[in-house]
């Protein structure tokens, strides 16, 4: 540990600095009344262009992304670069689809996507399914942020022999995070995101200028990587894709993009902005992060070129590829700058973890507590419950890390992406049309879930010698096709989901099953800042209709 003293001091200093910022954030932009879910959970729905850029950027590009994407590139090459097309495709989708969710939420005071589904389809059951899906999918995502911090701590040598000693720094970090999220709500990650993103940009710009210079230029880096892949026996790796993993690459990029904009934390970030123009303008500014992510991905090749050997994993004989980027920084940078880089990754974990726990807390409060436990909850009670729920969510995430193999949370995150995709027909298509019947959506959700789980269960991972949940690339030969090609599980599952939803809709409509009352009007989907808001619409849906 003594070799890393400078790194640890710089890391700790920056970490404490943002912790203070987190607590001060409660006073930032002076909320009129913090005892309201709009204030705690959505920052008052008031964020302008710059804050939204930092917040959503800090939210979508997580510490785990910064650690895991280069780790994938390090291990498999081109297939890991899917993160770039994925983050190119997502912004036009946000631009076209999520903007309507912002408008209808602004008009009706929705805080979560399940709120929207509740009013649009008049189905508390469908809303509950959407809310539970969101919470379950978000939990392992939060846990993964801890994996990001852990990779950094491991590299700095902050590890112990017992499980408790190994995890103590993470528990302390998360306790601080939990305290200031409780105190300041969404304002805390919004303010910290400024520091996090500034640090990340500085570190990466230095890395992509300095490291190629040290390693002999980009051409050499790519050639070294190519030589490694040619020497390795694995069939799927290489500097470009091969004939068998192209469908996987495409469907994974598209499926991940669709999943990302359905995740509760992305929706929370978007709903917190103050008008439509802020969102639209940001969709042409946020790709700056995609460029950054592409460069970060290439750190994986630099690690190959620099001869980085990943640290051992938790089980004997395995290696933890997630440590390659921290190790690369540790080897190539002076100690103080490596400390800054580690702090960037560590703080990078806090911003999304805070937003995710707020999003999960909002879902619990609005769609479980208020719907089923206390229908007449006041705004102050809602805010109070959400604050407690955010604590519970974080304790759950820490428990993931303490009691489960980190590999398990990576698997669960994989499952989470497939789960959240199953809300696409209700949330995304629901923003355009109410043609799908609520019964069809529920049936489709169930069908998509079942198929997705079965497919994930049946994928083995030869590298880690496990028979199930070994990845998201499903071999098409299991469907009876005579081909070694693979496809992304979520994509197939959501296709079945949609098919079932359409078929069941046709059946239910033929049987004249009641469709419920649509609490939204066409004009709601274009509402903007300054339009009158209908706060009461959701609290008393009975006054609007009693159709079923």
């Amino acid at each position, binding site marked *: 540990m003594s070799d890393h003293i400078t790194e640890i001091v710089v890391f700790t200093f920056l970490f404490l600095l943002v912790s203070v910022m987190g607590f001060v954030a409660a006073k930032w932009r002076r909320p*009129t009344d913090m005892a309201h879910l709009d204030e705690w959970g959505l920052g*008052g*729905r*008031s964020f302008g262009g710059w804050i939204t850029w930092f917040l959503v950027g800090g939210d979508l590009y997580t510490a785990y992304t910064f650690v895991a994407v280069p780790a994938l590139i390090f291990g498999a090459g*081109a297939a890991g*670069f899917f993160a*770039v*097309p994925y983050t*190119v*495709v997502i*912004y*036009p*989708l946000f*631009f*076209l689809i999520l*903007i*309507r969710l912002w408008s209808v939420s602004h008009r009706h005071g929705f805080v979560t996507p399940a709120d929207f589904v509740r009013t649009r389809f008049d189905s508390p059951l469908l809303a509950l399914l959407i809310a539970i899906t969101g919470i379950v999918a978000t939990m392992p995502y939060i846990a993964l942020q801890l994996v990001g911090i852990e990779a950094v701590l491991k590299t700095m040598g902050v590890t112990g022999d017992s499980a408790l000693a190994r995890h103590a720094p993470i528990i302390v970090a998360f306790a601080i995070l939990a305290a200031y999220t409780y105190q300041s709500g969404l304002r805390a990650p919004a303010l910290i995101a400024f520091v996090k993103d500034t640090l990340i940009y500085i570190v990466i710009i230095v890395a992509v200028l300095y490291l*190629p210079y040290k390693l002999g*230029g*980009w*051409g*050499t*880096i*790519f050639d070294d990587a190519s030589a490694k892949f040619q020497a390795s026996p694995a069939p799927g790796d290489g*500097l*470009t*894709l091969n004939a068998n993993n*192209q469908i996987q*690459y*495409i469907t994974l*990029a*598209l499926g991940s993009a669709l999943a990302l904009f359905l995740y509760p934390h992305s929706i929370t970030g978007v709903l917190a902005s103050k008008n*439509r*123009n802020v969102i*639209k*303008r940001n*969709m*042409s500014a946020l*790709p700056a992060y*995609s*460029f950054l992510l*592409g460069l970060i991905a*290439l750190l994986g090749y630099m690690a190959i070129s620099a001869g980085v050997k990943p640290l051992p994993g938790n089980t004997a004989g395995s290696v933890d590829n997630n440590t390659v980027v921290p190790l690369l920084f540790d080897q190539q940078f002076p100690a103080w700058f490596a400390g800054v880089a580690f702090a960037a990754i560590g703080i990078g974990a806090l911003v999304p973890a805070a937003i995710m726990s707020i999003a999960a807390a909002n879902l619990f409060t609005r769609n479980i507590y208020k719907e089923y436990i206390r229908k007449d909850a006041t705004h102050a009670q809602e805010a109070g419950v959400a604050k407690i729920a955010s604590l519970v969510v974080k304790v759950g995430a820490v428990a993931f890390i303490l009691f489960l193999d980190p590999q398990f949370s990576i698997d669960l995150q994989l499952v989470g992406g497939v789960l959240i995709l199953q809300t696409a027909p209700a949330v995304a298509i629901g923003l355009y049309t109410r043609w799908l019947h609520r019964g069809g959506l529920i049936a489709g959700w169930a069908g998509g879930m079942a198929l997705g789980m079965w497919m994930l269960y049946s994928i083995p991972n030869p590298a880690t010698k496990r028979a199930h949940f070994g990845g998201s690339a499903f071999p098409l030969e299991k469907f009876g096709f005579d081909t070694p090609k693979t496809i992304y599980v979520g994509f197939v599952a959501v296709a079945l989901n949609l098919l079932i939803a359409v078929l069941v809709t046709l059946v239910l409509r033929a049987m004249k099953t009641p469709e419920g009352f649509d609490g939204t*009007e*066409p*004009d709601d*989907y*274009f*509402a*903007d*800042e*300054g*339009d*009158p*808001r*209908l*706060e009461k619409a959701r609290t008393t849906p009975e006054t609007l209709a009693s159709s079923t």
Partner: protein
Amino acid sequence: MSAPRSDRSPWNWLLVIPIVLPLVTPLYNFDSPRLWGFPAFYWLQFSFIFVGVITTSIVYQMTKRPPVTPAAPAEQSTKPAETTDE
């Protein structure tokens, strides 16, 4: 509703480009030509980011609303339409 609002615009079709282009792997799955040492697979996908920026910027400029929102056509409120934060 006298003058229904809409977010329909022919300009939105421009956004099909950044959604489809990055997903057509046969277009860019090559090593050469290299640019500053980058294989085509990488620099072409980096260039798609700029395609995304340019197209969304154009569509934003062409579809953005005037900064002052006109009073909502439906649900005429007695409250002034400016400050909505209660």
